[in-house]
Structure formats: structure tokens, C-alpha cells
């Protein structure tokens, strides 16, 4: 047992860090440092820079343009990218649809979609959840009926992140409503968002942003060649997708960036007449989060190594530990950062808009995105399987309760 990184791994981290430092557009870095979420074009540009370097499909096999990195290298790469902070790789493309097509896709699907996904020529979104099917995903009702060489899709998806940016949606649809088990009548379809009958309606979230959507399907005709895997067997495709790449699930780099930022801003603000950074209670709180981050880092290394040793194809239920602790740390570190900001963090404004409109700023430039980040991260324990569901998984799959 050796918890230290090998010299090769240390060198790899240095290589990644240097590449990001030298290639991340300055404006993107500066916006993200202040907590702004990257714009659509910034995400596309960064993905393409990484793709030119050969790193965008960091987790795909080399024959499909992947990197061939070890699990540890993949983890290091993701962490460095988040901690920079640089735009996250679009997970719908890279950790979801890519691996799914590699595993289940036809040759034609692979040839067409994989290079485009990797270069973000197509922006993908995930059409799983429905109003009646959240935690209980298998109760989904969106119907797809065969009509010659098409499926005709009717129904509704909800919470579809970035559907308004998307070119394509991978969807779970019900092809056999009469199957003995609910899971057995579901299929996995690729739907072009420009098809007539697809309607996207925005949902504004409590941070004030437009990230979520409802997607309505009315007689949407989808060619049968857009079926992935076997008809009625979409549930196993979905399970593969959800269990596939757990390396990034803890998003540790983001938490580290927020903790680091808290310390920076704490030098600028006051607590009882002294810089906040000198306040013992504040320091204790930071120390606690750093302990949590360290424990998570080691646990993550253990899960990732075990996954790699097991051949890297069977999801490990212990990754639910990473989801629970990772999202708690994300939430706690965003909460810390907002608390550092204090009253200044409560105003609704945007430094960049103020600058454009030549208006005076309402507060310091570090302030405006603190509360939105905190608010949006309340969702981290909801999406990707709620933390309650993660604990149910641990109870059933690990503890035998």
C-alpha cells in the first residue's frame, strides 16, 4: 500500500496543469475564477482545444480517439481541470453518450456520432427524468410507437439540463407498455432536437439562471436506426450509462477551488476589526473542510484503483460514497464562500454587465456569483440520483439491509 502518487503521476499532474495554464483562454479563466459559469461558446472552445490535444475523450478507449490513461490519470486530469477552474467537459458527450455508443452503438452510430461528440460538434442532453419519474426512473411514460422505419414519440421530459443548447438528446422511452416488468419495456433513442414536434421550454432555477428545461415531444418521428442497443432493452443501456464513469462524480476539484477562493477573499474582508482569515473560528471551519477534502481524495483513489483492478467495467456501489461526500463537500464549500462574502454576496447583480453598462458596481467583483453558486449547488444532492437514493443503494448493495 502506498498512498503517494508515483513520480510519473506527479509529472503527469504537472503536465496537465501546465497545459491548462497555457491554453485556457484568459477571459474564460477570469470569469470562472469570479464564479461565473462558462458560456456555451466558452465550453465549446475549451472542449475543442482539449480535443486538438487529444484529451477531450479522456475516458474513451484509444481506438475511438481516447487517451488510454489509467484511472488515476483520469482522476488527476478531471481534478486539475476543475480546480483551474476551466469549463467542465460536457458530461453528456464525454462520460455519457460516448461510452454508451462505444459499448452498444452500431458501427454507423459510432462512425457518425463519436468524433462529433468529442469535438462538441453536437451538444447532447439527457432526456431521462419525467414529471412522474424522478428517483423512480423506471416509471417513465414517454411513448415511442413503431411506424414503419420510424418511432413516433409522444410525451414529456423535465429537468433536461442545457436542452436549449442541445443538438441531440438521448432519451429513455417506453416501447412496450405491456411488459411484465416496467424495466423491460424501455428503449434508448437518439433524438435530433431539430425534429418537428420537439419543443423546449425553459425552467428558471432559484439561482436565477436558465439551466433546466422541459422538453415536449408531439408525434416526433425518429428513424429506427437511432435506436441504441436492442429494442425494449434500454434499461440496461441506461444502467450502464449511470454506472459507467464514476471518477468525476465527487467533483473534488470544484470544492478545492471554492475553499481556495474562500481563503483568498477572507484576506480582504473583516471580522471584528481583523482580516477574517485571522479569525480562529473561520480557520477551524476551513481546516474541517480541508480534512473532509483529504478523506474524500483518498477514498476516491481507493474506489478508482479498485475499479481499475476489477477490469473497469462493473460499477462499484461504493461510488455512492463518493457521490454523497462529494456533493456534501461541494455544498459546504460553496456555503463557506458565500458566508465569507456576507451581506455583499446577497445583492443581485453582475460585475460584467455593470462594466458593460458603465454602471457603478454594487459590491466587490468577487461578490455577485457567491450566492448563485451556493443556490445552484443545492441541486447537487438531487441530480444524478439523490443522496437519499445513494444511501438506499449502499443499504441494499453493500450492507445487505
Amino acid at each position, binding site marked *: 500500500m502506498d498512498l503517494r502518487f508515483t513520480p510519473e503521476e506527479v509529472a503527469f499532474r504537472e503536465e496537465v496543469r501546465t497545459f491548462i495554464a497555457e491554453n485556457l483562454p484568459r477571459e474564460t479563466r477570469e470569469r470562472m475564477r469570479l464564479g461565473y459559469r462558462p458560456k456555451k461558446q466558452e465550453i465549446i472552445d475549451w472542449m475543442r482545444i482539449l480535443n486538438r490535444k487529444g484529451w477531450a475523450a479522456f475516458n474513451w478507449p484509444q481506438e475511438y480517439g481516447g487517451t488510454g490513461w489509467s484511472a488515476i490519470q483520469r482522476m488527476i486530469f478531471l481534478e486539475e481541470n476543475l480546480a483551474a477552474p476551466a469549463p467542465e467537459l460536457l458530461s453528456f458527450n464525454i462520460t455519457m453518450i460516448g461510452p454508451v455508443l462505444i459499448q452498444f452503438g452500431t458501427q454507423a452510430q459510432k462512425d457518425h456520432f463519436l468524433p462529433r461528440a468529442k469535438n462538441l460538434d453536437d451538444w447532447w442532453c439527457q432526456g431521462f427524468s419525467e414529471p412522474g419519474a424522478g428517483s423512480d426512473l423506471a416509471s417513465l411514460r414517454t411513448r415511442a410507437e413503431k411506424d414503419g422505419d420510424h418511432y413516433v414519440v409522444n410525451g414529456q421530459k423535465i429537468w433536461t439540463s442545457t436542452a436549449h443548447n442541445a443538438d441531440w438528446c438521448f432519451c429513455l422511452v417506453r416501447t412496450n407498455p405491456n411488459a411484465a416488468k416496467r424495466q423491460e419495456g424501455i428503449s434508448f433513442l437518439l433524438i435530433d432536437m431539430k425534429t418537428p414536434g420537439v419543443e423546449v421550454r425553459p425552467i428558471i*432555477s432559484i439561482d436565477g439562471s436558465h439551466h433546466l428545461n422541459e422538453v415536449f415531444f408531439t408525434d416526433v418521428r425518429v428513424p429506427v436506426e437511432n435506436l441504441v442497443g436492442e429494442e425494449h432493452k434500454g434499461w440496461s443501456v441506461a444502467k450502464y450509462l449511470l454506472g459507467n464513469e464514476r471518477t468525476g462524480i465527487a467533483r473534488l476539484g470544484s470544492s478545492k477551488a471554492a475553499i481556495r477562493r474562500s481563503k483568498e477573499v477572507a484576506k480582504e474582508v473583516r471580522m471584528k476589526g481583523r482580516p477574517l482569515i485571522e479569525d480562529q473560528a473561520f480557520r477551524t471551519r476551513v481546516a474541517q473542510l480541508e480534512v473532509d477534502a483529504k478523506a474524500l481524495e483518498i477514498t476516491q483513489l481507493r474506489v478508482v484503483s479498485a475499479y481499475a483492478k476489477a477490469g473497469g467495467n462493473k460499477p462499484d456501489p461504493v461510488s455512492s460514497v463518493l457521490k454523497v461526500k462529494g456533493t456534501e463537500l461541494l455544498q459546504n464549500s460553496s456555503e463557506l464562500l458565500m458566508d465569507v*462574502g*456576507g*451581506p*455583499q454576496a446577497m445583492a443581485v447583480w453582475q460585475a460584467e454587465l455593470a462594466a458593460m453598462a458603465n454602471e457603478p458596481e454594487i459590491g466587490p467583483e468577487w461578490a455577485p456569483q457567491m450566492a448563485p453558486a451556493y443556490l445552484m449547488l*443545492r441541486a447537487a444532492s438531487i441530480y444524478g440520483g439523490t443522496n437519499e437514493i445513494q444511501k*438506499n443503494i449502499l443499504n441494499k448493495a453493500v450492507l445487505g439491509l
Partner: protein
Amino acid sequence: MDFDLTEDQRLLTESVGRLLGDTYGFEQRKQLLKTPTGWSEALWAQYAELGLLGLPFSEDHGGFGGSAVDVMLLMQDFGKHLVLEPYLSTVVLGGTALRLAGSADQQDEILPGIAAGERRLAFAHYERQSRYDMTDVLTTARANAGGFVLEGAKATVLHGDSADTLIVSARTAGGRDDEAGLSLFLVDANTAGIARRGYTLRDGSRAAELSLSGVQVPREALLGQQDNALPIIRRVVEAGIAAGAAEVVGAMEAMQAMTLEYLKTRVQFGKAIGENQALQHRAAEMMIALEQGRSMAMLAAMMVDEPNDAERARNISMAKVGVGQAGRFVSQNAVQLHGGIGMTEEYAVGHYFRRVMVFEHLYGDTAYHLDLLADQVA
């Protein structure tokens, strides 16, 4: 000790509940948020008619002679309905400053106007650099032949954009962080040299940044003793904490009720999600937090008029901590137990969440007041 309400208090909460029930539906409130002022003049007039705007003032000043407990009950209702009108800034903060420090003339001139709904105040004390430090005041007031000249800036002035009268703190002596040397001034918001930038806080309520350059005010503008305003400023902030704590209790009650309803009606895996013991326990924990928070809001209301300064400040700090922690727990879990729907602007839980969040970051957050209390551990 007596936790029962008087007949008058029951009548008060009933009539307020009726008015807000009719006027403060979620959709009605959303329309209000879209207006330029962000609140309703018409409702303000109705509050005046009901006697709410003079609730804590003496009958001589057109008031009701109400107690801090009366204000607490009202603020609980305001919290339950997420009321947007400038009650806290005008009646609680402004009213407290005038009641405690105003001369007879100043009180006669302003309090009846507040009670009648004709005047609105804002308390302009904290500054951009001060965060929660009450003595960190850089704004100055220099005496001259005409009275005083104010120079400086004020931050996060609640409802500072719509107030007609500002209560501004400034240094007449001493330097940053000195306890002595602070004074309060009653300033007409339209005085030359005052620039106000109004904006919205995360909970939809309004605030303003003020800049003061060469603002000439007469000698009579001085509110209370020159150089010795800190005790008054403290009491104004404490009154704000007590009232805000009650608002948070109202908001917690609303979130708790919505969450319980959701647990009973939302079906996943073929049964109501509330049948899962994990969620039943969470609901019980929310209730426990709410009750603890309610106790602390009561403590604040009962302590706000306590004459012993140290005793009062200590208890108010405890209440701010207790309500802050309860509010955070209840609101975070209310969102969590609603799943995705709790994250949306179209659903009320998130609005309550942000009201609680904003109050937690006014007048000293949980960590700040815990620090104050820790200093006193003997």
C-alpha cells in the same frame, strides 16, 4: 412566564392573516416583484389602516402601544407570506431609532407620519468594508456653520431606494473601529449630494447603495447625542434581529407545511415518498429545528427591551445563532425533500429559502454571533 396570546394579539394575527391571505398569493407576489418599486403602495396604505405601521408606537404618536411580542407576531405572518413592503426598515429600524433617540420634536414630526403610511425610513449604517462590524464607520460628519456636512458611502441599505428619510450614521469624532465618536442624522433622502443606487437582494427585497458627498444637513438633523450613537445603533440592530428572527420563523413554518404536504402527495416507487422512514425522520428533524428556532425568536422578542445592555446583547446573539442554524437546516431540507421542483423559481420553497438566506447574512451571521458569544465564555 406566559406563552399565551392576549385577546388583542389574537385579533391582530387574525386580521393580518386575512389581509395577507387575500393579497399575498404566490402569483400576486410575483407580479409585485416585477414592479419598479418591488412592493405595493396600496398594501402599505392598508397596513396603515389596520394600525400595523404604528404598532410599536405610543398612542400619542398615532400608534397602538404594542409590545415587542406584537411585532414578533406580525413579523411571523410577514415571513409566512414573504411580505415585500418596507416594514422592517421603516417601522422596526427607523421607528426604534426615533423612539430611543429622537427628541420630542423629532418624534412628533415623524412617528405619526409613519403610522399614517405617509413616511418611510431607511437605516443607513453599514458600509461596504464593514461587513458585520458595527464600529467600522468611515463616513464622516463635519460640523460647520449650517450644521453638518456628510461625506462617505453606505451599503446594503434596506429599502434605501424608496425611503423619504434616511437615518445615517457618521463619525463626528474618532477613527475607524472607535466605539466613541459616532452620531446619527435624520436626512431627507432628496438632499443634494446624496446618490442612491437601488437594487434587488436575492430574496426579491429592495436595497440601495448610498453615496454622500458634501451633504449639508442642519444642526437639528442630529438624532440623539453627538459622538455617542453606538448604544442606539446597537439597539436598532437588535430590534432588526428580533423582527427578522420572527420572519424566519414564519418562513420556516411555511416551508415545513409545504414539505409535509409534498411528502404525503408525491408518489415514487408506488407509494408516497413520506412513507420512507428516512424522510419521516428528516421531517421530524425539521420540526425539531423549527421549534428550537421559534423558541429563540421568542427569546429575542422578550429581550429586545431588556434594560441591561450586556444581558440583552448576549441573548440577542444567541437568538441570531439559533434562528440562523434552524433556518438553514429547515430551508436546505425543504429543498432537498422536494427534489427538482424545489430548485425552481416557479415554486415557493426557493423563495422562502432565499429570504432566510438573506436574513442570515444581515446584522452578523451565525459565525459572527457565535464569535461574540465565544468571547464571553467564562
